[in-house]
């Protein structure tokens, strides 16, 4: 099981191709908002969910995806889904 720091690093790698604001990406914290801060196009949020599913071999159901708007909430969802495996 990855530590929280490792999870953030993996998530950063997943998110990087979709980021439009490189400067905000330098300073990612758990509070970083994918759309408001990183200016990620909302249609790409679904790619992030799909990439996360592939990277961790988990399923992000629609209810979980609804809340995947920040780095922190994504980490929370990944941790929960991994624990359920």
């Amino acid at each position, binding site marked *: 099981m990855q530590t929280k720091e490792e999870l953030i690093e993996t998530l950063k790698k997943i998110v990087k191709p979709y980021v439009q604001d490189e400067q905000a990406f330098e300073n990612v914290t758990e509070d970083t908002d994918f759309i408001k801060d990183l200016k990620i196009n909302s249609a*790409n*949020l*679904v790619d992030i969910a799909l990439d996360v599913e592939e990277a961790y071999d988990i399923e992000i159901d629609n209810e979980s995806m*609804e*809340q995947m*708007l920040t780095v922190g909430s994504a980490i929370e969802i990944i941790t929960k889904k991994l624990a359920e495996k």
Partner: protein
Amino acid sequence: MIGNDIVDRAQAHRESNWQRRGFLEKLFTIHEQKLILTADDPERIVWLLWSIKESAYKASFRETGKRIFAPRKLACQIISISDETAEGVVFYEKIYQTKSLITPQYIASTATSANTSSSLHQTIIPFEKATYQDQHLLIREKIKQYCTDSLSIPKENSYIQKDSNSVPILTLVKSSTEQLHIPISISHHGYYGAFAIGPNRSLPA
């Protein structure tokens, strides 16, 4: 309540692979997936439906302040569609009416609550640069210009603010005693921007 959204089709084509496994299923209802998969140009319908959903979501967010990424919950029906326009409705806690413009370069949609009869004004702005900050400033200048020109008031008497939900509102100072507060919706993507101005009796539709 108003919302508007624009999709730069070339940018969308580069940014997203709609044929990726799971993509359509996560974004679209069964009905919408069927519309896409039976279309002559499926990609066109993907981005038409997406811009419709986004515009309705923005209209809803303006009202509720509820931030959520639940594209399947915004259920679209296309009422009519031609080569250049489409009209639709979206069911999302209530009913929204949508109108879309379709060109080879972009797809732009506006949404209003179904009970409002007045139509919105939408302007499309092609950009020379795709950088966020330039577009952010230029689009705001264009909004002020459009409204102050229409009402013959000095541009300096207009400003755009965001409310507590980060929803933009244009304020026009007509006189020392009269201010107009006009809801606006702003969107940009790739090389295109769009703004919509809420129904206001003082402004042309």
